């Protein structure tokens, strides 16, 4: 199985790029911040705490994000290969063997990426330390003091997380009897499984409860950052919760589009594809929702904080740095996921898009229908993501005495929305350009 895995990898390097990038960047980020934590051991009193917090927070969030993005990228490649896996199973591979193939393939990619990421992190670690020191977060007396342990630890952590993610994706891909897999993935909607709904409700519920606690309890705390601690992650949690429900959101969201479609062939095709094959596009919608909610929620949070606590207090710089790093990390990974998901769905639908050409659709109509789908996804994504962001913005704004609507920074909402929509549409266009020599010719046979 291992040699088969490697051979299959060499055969399709493109599918591996997204997983490779996610693991590489994940290790690089977590590793760089881990060197800060390691440097804390010899540091004098206030500095050691700061360094540990920086390392731990980025490490913790980073692991969650890497888990999600690797699960998503491996999941997408595994689904794309449903036919091939079905074929392996019909000629006698057990589900366990098929799972091992997927896990080892992604394991090989992740190992290369993690080693490279760790090497890079040992170079960027000192640079980060200098940055933190020149920003005044730690005093001049503290020295950078990290060996290979921290970056290696970060690499291992990312590897374990990726293996877990790959195992989850592989299990999903090999569920059910072998025969049913060798089919074109049609319009049949898999029903949402109960545990998926349960996870979504827990995440959304947790976010809402934290919002309520922020308004009723921590708003009155003496520490101005108590309210941030309870409300800061709400937008991300609610966003992830809603992202888990992506197929349902797509089915609902495509309805109004159909009413607007009129006689346009592209809008007609786009609306039915989004609604009836929501499982394909939900891989794109999920990161769009999380990207919007995390970016908008955290940026507004930092903005409100800066306005209501102008002088700051000793922790302000660290907290702002952390907020910015987390939001940057989330945006980066979500962007990778959006781009990858589009490349994967377009590759998956190649035959079908070609079919449209044979029936007399112009290349423009085919491209148009995919970009229109991206438009539907982006529209639903930013609306849902903005709602999720409110879980952070409203309670924190109330806690800092600005009322339900913050006093400033409202321009952030249209800015984030515009950026997310642009990213989604651009990745759809890019994916079409990469995958579709939409000439109707040769493949007719």
């Amino acid at each position, binding site marked *: 199985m291992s040699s088969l895995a490697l051979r299959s990898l060499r055969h399709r390097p493109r599918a591996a790029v997204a997983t490779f990038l996610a693991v590489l960047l994940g290790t690089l980020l977590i590793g760089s911040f881990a060197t800060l934590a390691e440097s804390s051991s010899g540091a004098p009193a206030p500095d050691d705490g700061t360094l540990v917090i920086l390392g731990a927070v980025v490490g913790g969030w980073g692991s969650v994000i890497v888990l999600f993005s690797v699960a998503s990228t491996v999941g997408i490649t595994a689904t794309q290969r449903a036919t091939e896996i079905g074929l392996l199973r019909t000629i006698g591979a057990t589900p366990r063997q098929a799972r091992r193939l997927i896990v080892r393939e992604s394991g090989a990619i992740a190992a290369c990426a993690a080693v490279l990421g760790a090497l890079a992190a040992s170079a960027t670690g000192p640079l980060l330390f200098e940055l933190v020191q020149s920003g005044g977060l730690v005093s001049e007396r503290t020295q950078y003091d990290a060996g290979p342990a921290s970056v290696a630890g970060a690499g291992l952590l990312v590897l374990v997380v990726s293996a877990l993610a790959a195992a989850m994706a592989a299990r999903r891909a090999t569920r059910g009897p072998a025969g049913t897999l060798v089919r*074109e*993935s*049609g*319009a*049949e909607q898999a029903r949402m499984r109960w545990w998926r709904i349960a996870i979504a409700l827990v995440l959304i519920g947790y976010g809402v409860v934290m919002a309520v606690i922020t308004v009723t309890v921590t708003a009155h705390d003496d520490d101005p950052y108590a309210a941030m601690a309870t409300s800061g992650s709400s937008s991300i949690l609610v966003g992830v919760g809603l992202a888990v429900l992506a197929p349902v959101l797509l089915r609902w969201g495509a309805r109004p589009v159909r009413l607007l479609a009129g*006689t*346009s*062939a592209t809008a*007609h*095709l786009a609306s*039915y*594809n989004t*609604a*009836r*094959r929501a499982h394909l596009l939900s891989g794109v919608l999920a990161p769009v929702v999380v990207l919007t909610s995390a970016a908008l929620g955290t940026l507004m949070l930092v903005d409100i904080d800066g306005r209501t606590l102008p002088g700051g207090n000793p922790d302000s710089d660290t907290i702002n740095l952390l907020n910015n790093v987390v939001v940057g990390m989330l945006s980066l990974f979500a962007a990778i996921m959006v781009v990858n998901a589009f490349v994967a769905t377009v590759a998956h639908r190649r035959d*079908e898009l070609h*079919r*449209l*050409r*044979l*029936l*007399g*659709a*112009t*290349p423009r*109509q085919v491209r148009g229908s995919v970009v229109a789908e991206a438009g539907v996804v982006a529209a639903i994504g930013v609306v849902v993501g903005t709602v999720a962001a409110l879980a952070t913005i409203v309670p924190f704004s109330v806690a800092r005495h600005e009322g339900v609507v913050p006093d400033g920074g409202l321009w952030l909402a249209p800015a984030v929305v515009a950026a997310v929509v642009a990213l989604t549409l651009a990745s759809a266009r890019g994916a079409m350009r990469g995958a579709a020599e939409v*000439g*109707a*010719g*040769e493949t*007719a*046979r």
Partner: protein
Amino acid sequence: MSPTALEVHDLTRTYGSGDRAVTALAGIDLAFARGTFTAVMGPSGSGKSTFLSCAAGLDRPTGGRVLVGGTDVTEWDEDRRTRLRRERIGFVFQGFHLLPYLTAAQNVALPSRLAGKRVDWERVRCLLDRVGLAERAHHLPGSLSGGQQQRVAIARALLTAPDVLLADEPTGALDSATARQVLGVLRGSVADLGQTVVMVTHDPVAASYADEVVFLVDGRVAGRMAGPTADAVAGQLAHLDELVSA
């Protein structure tokens, strides 16, 4: 209106160049009169599929001319050929080629949509009724059998009342009972609607539904047979080499 639905004159198609050039079509002259049902047969590699691709404007011939409904379309660019496929040619594929997320009726209406025209739902209903699937109009392809999917595809190909309906092994993926239904539908469109049908097939039984069979061997027309029966076609196929040497 031109009396022939489709004509090809001295049609040639070569793939590659130099020593490795492969000749798929070596000069074919054929004319298909309106309201006729013709089967094109021949062994693998005889050029059947290339002929169909060139006729449908999917592939550009190396030499010769293609006339659809009396109009020379050989030199048309990709855009005009796309419109040609949409408006004047109906195509039925071995693999059905329905869009999985559109219902039967929406699939039939698709060529109108792509052309940016208003969908004539009455006509869509009539066509689905003609292929015996009026009851299934709102089903997705995933819940239809292979034979039913192919009949939806035929209804779709008939929507624009094309000059010619080209069918590439339309029964290749079907069992013999459903294949008979599909062939009956094709035959019916010729008899009742005056449709012109050109069908590439391997199957002598399928060919026996046609008015005439054209045999291709090595990219040339090797023979013809009017009023074919399955037995006669099978016998001829077994002795194609004699046709060539003759």
